[in-house]
């Protein structure tokens, strides 16, 4: 009998009395907890990968349309009276292109409509014509077919991002009453019944929305009435000035309530009207600009529908018909633009013109070379990333040429030569801290020291490269130190043994063996520098730079900053361009990281 069991006999409930619960139930519970834990772990990894997949797929799906652009292959007459062969800069090339459009649609005469028609093409069309004339001066006086990029809204519309376009080819005969102006088109069957039914559904939806609003007004009225009642109770006890305030308030509330009663009545009446039209069978409905737009393409012309019944359409001719003869079934079409005109930037007239140009085979979709050859621009259809790519290249060149020698030399010194004292400890702590400093602080350093104190040019790749070199330095130093540490001491001692000096040991033996690790670290550091934005914003690279930079002191921008600038722009077409630029940036980064991994796998030796 030991003391312990004696003790437990005296103190019931001590730990030695507890019997383990060996029941199968508990084992099952423990295994269930194990399975849950494992599932949570797997779930965490799957969540991270799902987010990555969402990110990549969103960017790619938004960015792919930006790699194609729609051009209009217009026949442009290079008018010799307009173009002076001795002074090619003075001609109004945009007017020549516009003239081509006006000639295609001679029925457009009003100034506002003509401006809309001219707005189909990019405002940079004159540059294209001018460069053509400069390279082919012998063609002045002839008509040439030139590829003019479409304006950015038109481009978005043509890519189908603004609205869906549905086409129906009914088999009934259609008889128009005229070739221009307001016409009526009578079909031989109930071909418009489906459109009529859809429109009525929309009217019903609008009606119930108006009734909801009326109900909300009624709630407001009720709350006003309740407040008036409370105030009237208070009025009985109030005296003097307070009495006046309460009376004023009551009358104000009363007036508001009456106003709202009127509004509610109006809403209810409108809702009732719409509902009546919607519930009636047959009849005809007016198409407003908050409903899908309907066009009829017949006899080479285009009619916009204003009023629809099951067999008859009343509309306005946008492009004249060639004749008023009846068109047989299968020779005319119904076009429906499902997004209402009030929700689109490209209105019905422009959509009609584009449809006609498309059937003329004037509209072509091509690879967007402008994306990769031109610099930034305020117009999305003229903007490209080439300026940013050149700027990135110049900046990274400076970064590499500054940080690689300094980083490797510093790491060699710290690893091999530095005595183990407090100073070198301090330097080591310093470098580790520098690696964790937020990047924007480096930007502040660049701003205060390089721009203000040294007076270097703003927004130049030189300054950007210097700031990024300071940021990449700790990464390279840490990677080089790790690579040097991995080389076994036996190599060093063998070299010393055959009479090499310390510097010779490093430069002839250790460094070449550590080089793969050093290069891997450098490539990863460069990849991080390529993606950096914040410090470069501080030194002014956020300016709007149109020209491609030519040297290290020209104003430039880099690819991530270009992405940032475009992400802030209001034009809708810039969303696709930004996503495309992100795709290009990610491609560069993936290539650099793959290169680093390849280097590591092929050349790194395990000692």
């Amino acid at each position, binding site marked *: 009998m030991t003391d312990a069991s004696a003790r437990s006999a005296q103190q019931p409930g001590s730990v030695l009395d507890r019997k383990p619960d060996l029941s199968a139930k508990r084992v099952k519970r423990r295994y269930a907890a194990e399975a849950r834990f494992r599932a949570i772990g797997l779930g965490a990894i799957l969540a991270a990968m799902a987010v990555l997949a969402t990110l990549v797929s969103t960017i790619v799906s938004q960015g792919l349309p930006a790699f194609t652009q729609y051009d209009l292959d217009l026949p442009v007459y290079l008018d010799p009276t307009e173009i002076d062969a001795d002074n090619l800069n003075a001609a109004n090339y945009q007017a020549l292109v516009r003239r081509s459009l006006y000639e295609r649609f001679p029925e457009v005469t009003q100034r506002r409509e003509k401006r809309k028609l001219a707005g189909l093409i990019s405002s940079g069309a004159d540059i294209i014509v001018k460069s053509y004339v400069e390279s082919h001066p012998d063609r002045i006086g002839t008509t040439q077919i030139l590829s003019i990029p479409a304006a950015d809204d038109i481009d978005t519309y043509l890519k189908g991002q603004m609205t869906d376009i549905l086409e129906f080819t009914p088999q009934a005969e259609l008889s128009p009453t005229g070739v221009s102006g307001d016409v009526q088109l009578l079909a031989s069957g109930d071909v418009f019944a489906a459109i009529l039914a859809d429109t009525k559904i929309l009217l019903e939806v609008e009606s119930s929305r108006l009734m909801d609003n009326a109900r909300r007004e009624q709630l407001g009225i009720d709350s006003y009435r309740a407040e008036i009642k409370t105030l009237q109770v208070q009025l009985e006890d109030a005296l003097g000035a307070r009495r006046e305030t309460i009376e004023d308030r009551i009358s104000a509330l009363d007036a508001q309530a009456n106003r709202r009663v009127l509004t509610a009545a109006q809403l209810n009446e409108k809702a009732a009207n719409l509902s009546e039209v919607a519930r009636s069978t047959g009849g005809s409905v007016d198409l407003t600009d908050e409903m899908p737009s309907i066009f009829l393409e017949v006899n080479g012309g285009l009619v916009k529908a204003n009023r629809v019944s099951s067999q008859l359409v009343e509309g306005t001719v946008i492009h004249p018909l060639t004749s008023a003869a009846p068109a047989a079934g299968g020779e005319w079409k119904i076009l429906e633009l499902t997004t209402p005109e009030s929700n689109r930037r490209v209105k019905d007239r422009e959509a009609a013109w584009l449809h006609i140009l498309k059937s003329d085979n004037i509209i072509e979709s091509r690879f967007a070379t402008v994306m990769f050859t031109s610099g930034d621009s305020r117009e999305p259809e003229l903007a490209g990333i080439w300026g940013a790519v050149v700027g990135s290249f110049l900046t990274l060149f400076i970064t590499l040429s500054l940080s690689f020698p300094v980083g490797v030399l510093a790491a060699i010194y710290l690893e091999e030569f530095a005595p183990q004292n407090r100073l070198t400890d301090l330097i080591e702590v*310093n470098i580790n801290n520098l690696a964790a400093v937020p990047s*924007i602080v480096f930007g502040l350093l660049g701003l205060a020291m390089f721009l203000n104190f040294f*007076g270097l040019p703003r927004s130049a790749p030189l300054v950007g490269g210097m700031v990024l070199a300071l940021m990449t330095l700790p990464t390279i130093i840490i990677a080089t130190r790790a690579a040097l540490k991995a080389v076994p001491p036996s190599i060093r001692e063998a070299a010393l043994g055959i009479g090499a000096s310390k510097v010779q040991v490093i430069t002839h033996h250790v460094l070449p063996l550590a080089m793969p690790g050093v290069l891997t670290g450098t490539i990863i550091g460069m990849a991080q520098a390529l993606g950096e934005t914040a410090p470069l914003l501080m030194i002014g690279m956020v300016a709007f730079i149109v020209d491609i930079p030519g040297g290290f002191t020209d104003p430039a921008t880099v690819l991530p900053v270009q992405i940032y600038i475009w992400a802030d722009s209001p034009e809708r077409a810039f969303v696709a361009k930004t996503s495309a630029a992100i795709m290009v940036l990610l491609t560069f980064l993936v290539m650099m990281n793959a290169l680093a991994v390849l280097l590591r796998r092929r050349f790194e030796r395990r000692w």
Partner: protein
Amino acid sequence: MSAPLIILVVALLATLAYYLGRSRAAAVSGGNTAILHSLPGYHGVYVAMWAAIPAMLVLTAWLIIGPQLAEWYLLSALPDSQTAGLTPSQLNLLVTDVKNLATGNIVSRTPDPGLIRAAEGYANALTISNAAMVVVVLSLTVMGIAVGRRHIDPDMRARNQVERIFTVIMIAASSIAVLTTIGIVASLIFEAARFFTKVSWYEFLFGLQWSPQTALRAEQVGASGAFGAVPIFAGTFLITIIAMAVAVPIGLFSAIYMSEYAGPKVRGIAKPALEVLAGVPTVVYGFFAALTVAPMFRGFGEGIGLDVSSESALAAGMVMGIMIIPFVSSLSDDVMNAVPQTLRDGSYALGATKSETIKQVILPAALPGIVGAVLLAVSRAIGETMIVVMAAGLAANLTANPLEAVTTVTVQIVTLLVGDQEFDSAKTLAAFALGLVLFVVTLCLNIFALSIVRKYREKYD
């Protein structure tokens, strides 16, 4: 001649010097290189160093000091009649005008004869200085070659000299890292000190109203600027908390799964995926947050009747958390792998399941490292710029509601410095004060994290 061209010429001459030195060493040895102390190559490098180093030092000094000297010359050459009674900024404008006129750029005033004369003088001075620089540098190179060659002798310890200079170069390289830190601290403190002469540090650190405006005249609208940074700190704190709430569970659990449960196939897919997440530039995350995540939250919120801002802290915080996941995951993975296998084996031997081992043995053992990793991640989240610039709001808002728009320290730094305010105003200097606070806080967090790891780390062997 431009600076890059001069550098190229000096480099070519240095290469030439190498060959000259080497051949001279061979000549001096009378064909028998064995009697030389050092290999002929070292003699060559010796001469090349004599050629390049003095020239490059003089070139660097000239490029740095030259523009400043030219400006002093310009100021002294301007007649007193033009410079009398000008405020410093007007004087600055005059100097800039002279410089622009000399280089052919746009001038802000119509050039009078005095200005033209000053510009011509400045242009002349620049040309003379440039020419002198070229002449001096190139002649230094040539003289260096001559001097170096003269030293070549069979007994000269060329290798030792070369190695000594090499060591000096290495020490200079290491000191650049120290100089960088000193530079950061000095520039931040200098500019922040200028700010604190205009706004008291007490108001800055504890004030509750952030509306950074400075008026040019007292009666202008922006005359009542407030520089209390507490709302900004609160916004940073809120977004960091949300980011940590996303990153720490997901990062920790993926690290646990990858180090304990995952087979080689899962590891082969998950580890590169996490590395890709880490390698995506933050501007891409910001774009994703601003254009996809924030509208999604807003639509979702409107659907269930909540009022979600289109720049909510929730969207920015979540995307920032996603960015930090690989950080937490890889650091925790390293720490958990460092726990020795003997502890795990002991636990399994007692009959514990894997999850019980992790919860009761490995995590407590790795806890200091994990805490250190989380603190480092917090420091990264605080210093993150692009995600919040694109997805978080601009107005300082003191709130704990993640559905509202808040602003952070880094957003304010960017907004204040990317505008076109003059550099002296309290508005732009406030950015430096914020930068100083940011630097100090992240530095303290890092040091704290490292000290925790070092203090509580178990030594198992």
